[in-house]
């Protein structure tokens, strides 16, 4: 029978099926960070259990790390304790840990692919919802809670029931200055934040094939914001080229055998998808959010919605609540909205290609006087490469703050946060109330759009800059 890529990876990892259909799924790769793991390691200690496969586990601190003055350690005591706890747990249980000053340190979902820890056809989990990022390589990757982190540490498996298959076909060619971020924001606008609940999404079509690995990671990263457990993109020559020679990628004869296997992964012709969504990339505008849910998307040419035009009472109330929180008036053109801050970084848009795009927009320009803009590379290796290419100089010259790698203001667990009422053009993934700081107002955009807004001082159509 014709199978989807998800079906194939699922079948290949089945350890056991119970009579009621509940499955035990083998996990090939486990990424661990400091926020969602301390209680899991504590659970192991209390029950006298070990980490079953330390070599399949990789730990790195990213959420709490400071993005400046790192050599001085972490000033906030709770943050410091959490990072130290991860280091100690990794040591006690024999897990490799990339410490804060290691050049390989960075946001866990950027580190995995860079190290070749992320491979096609594998199952990958992490106590972090943006684990869906790794699906860009054709890996079945999703976030889990801390109890499940403990379960994977102890057993290298997860108790799962199978999700349904959804295909998201993005045809056509993206216009200039319209990016992977605009594709995924448009997808979420189309299906809603719960549209993918209970599904694994596979992205296909000409526009997806044309994306770089970086762009594919951006798309898969935000699958969770559409409610999907995971996102998948079939591996191809770009995937293999990205992975070849990475520290943990297969080498020699293993590489050839691995590539041969990876080529069998794409969905079969005629495989059944429970739901299919089709989008035309050639019509997509630069897209941004106006509200406090990622489904609140609008074209840069559009305006803030008017709740009085919404019939459904629950939806109208939700829009009114979002507008009040965001401090926006109905029908305001998006290009009239001024910003105070710009944040470029995160597991969504903190990779080298993102920084190159930002530098292109910023070159020879200045950040508006009333805007504070920061660029946080996704990892030490991204930072190093950007510096080799001279991107840091262009950005610093233009008035951007050039920081050390980490999650930073995507979720504001470290010192980087919005003040009450501040409005931010952010390349991250969540615009929830308080996400970037209590009372902070987040608009999700592509890296180019964030850079253009930082320079203009308000949102602008990057195609016209």
């Amino acid at each position, binding site marked *: 029978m014709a199978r989807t890529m998800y079906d194939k990876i699922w079948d290949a990892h089945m350890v056991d099926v119970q009579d009621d259909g509940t499955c035990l799924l083998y996990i090939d790769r486990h990424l661990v960070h400091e926020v969602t793991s*301390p209680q899991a390691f504590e659970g192991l200690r209390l029950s006298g259990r070990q980490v079953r496969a330390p070599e399949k586990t990789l730990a790195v601190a990213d959420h*709490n790390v400071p993005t400046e003055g790192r050599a001085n350690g972490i000033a906030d005591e709770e943050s410091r304790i959490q990072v130290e706890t991860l280091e100690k747990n990794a040591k006690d249980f024999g897990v490799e840990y990339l410490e804060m000053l290691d050049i390989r340190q960075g946001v866990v979902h950027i580190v995995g692919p860079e190290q070749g820890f992320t491979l096609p056809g594998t199952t990958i989990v992490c106590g972090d919802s943006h684990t869906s990022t790794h699906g860009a390589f054709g890996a079945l990757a999703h976030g889990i*809670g801390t109890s499940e982190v403990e379960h994977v540490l102890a057993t290298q498996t997860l108790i799962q029931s199978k999700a349904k298959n959804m295909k998201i076909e993005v045809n056509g060619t993206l216009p200039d200055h319209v990016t992977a971020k605009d594709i995924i924001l448009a997808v979420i606008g189309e299906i809603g934040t719960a549209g993918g609940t209970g599904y694994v999404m596979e992205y296909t079509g000409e526009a997806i094939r044309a994306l770089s690995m970086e762009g594919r990671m951006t798309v898969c990263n935000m699958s969770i914001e559409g409610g999907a457990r995971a996102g998948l993109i079939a591996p191809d020559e770009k995937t293999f080229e990205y992975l070849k020679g990475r520290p943990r990628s*297969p080498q020699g004869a293993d590489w050839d055998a691995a590539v041969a296997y990876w080529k069998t992964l794409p969905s079969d012709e005629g495989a059944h998808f429970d739901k299919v969504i089709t989008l035309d990339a050639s019509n997509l505008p630069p897209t941004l959010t106006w509200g406090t849910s990622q489904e609140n998307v609008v074209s840069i040419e559009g305006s803030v919605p008017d709740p009085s035009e919404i019939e459904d009472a629950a939806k109208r109330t939700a829009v009114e609540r979002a507008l009040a929180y965001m401090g926006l008036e109905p029908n305001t053109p998006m290009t009239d909205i001024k910003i105070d801050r710009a944040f470029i970084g995160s597991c969504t848009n903190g990779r080298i290609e993102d920084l190159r795009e930002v530098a292109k927009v910023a070159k020879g320009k200045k950040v508006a006087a009333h805007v504070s803009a920061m660029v946080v590379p996704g990892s030490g290796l991204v930072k190093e490469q950007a510096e080799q290419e001279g991107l840091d100089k262009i950005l610093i010259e233009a008035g951007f703050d050039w920081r050390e790698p980490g999650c930073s203001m995507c979720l504001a667990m470290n010192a980087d946060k919005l003040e009450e009422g501040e409005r931010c053009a952010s390349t991250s993934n969540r615009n929830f109330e308080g996400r970037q700081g209590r009372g902070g107002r987040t608009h999700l955009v592509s890296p180019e759009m964030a850079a253009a807004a930082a320079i203009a001082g308000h949102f602008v159509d990057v195609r016209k800059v």
Partner: protein
Amino acid sequence: MDKFKKVDGVAAPLPILNVDTDMIIPKQFLKTIKRTGLGKNLFDEMRFTKEGAEIPEFVLNKPQYRNAEILVAGDNFGCGSSREHAPWAIADFGIKVIISTSFADIFYNNCFKNGILPIKLSQADVDKLMDDAERGANATVSVDLETQEIKGPDGGTISFDIDPFRKHCLLEGLDDVGLTLQKEEKITSFEKTRGAEQPWL
């Protein structure tokens, strides 16, 4: 984990769509290395001012809902991050049942690991229970996992579906890791086969 027993309690109405895990437990409380003590920060930025004073309009600050054991909420409850701090905070506050039309996937899973029963119902049934919940402490709701039934204050009964394995684990308070380790031979055998077929892993 404690066994899930029948809940007879006050239901609090939270008719907000897409209640996300940042609302349930903001990031500043994720720095803990413990599972306990998060109930006091549940819905922190909706429940308290920046200075820490209670916001009287918020449902769980109203006298009749302070001891609520059931939450009736809008669509897509628990969306956002995988933080298990969200169900930890909910359980620590004393809420044992959450009723909505839909839940985000990871949050839904996390509930079962913490003795919380998330119940998915039709919009009409959620609307009915939301009305009941609006009536406060005079209108307790009864949730029976064994019979998969909810009884409202006026005696009406609503049935709900639940995965049989999850139901069994909640009722018995079973430890997943312990259950899985009973299948250790199968895991070892899988690892051997896979190691031979895909030595690069």
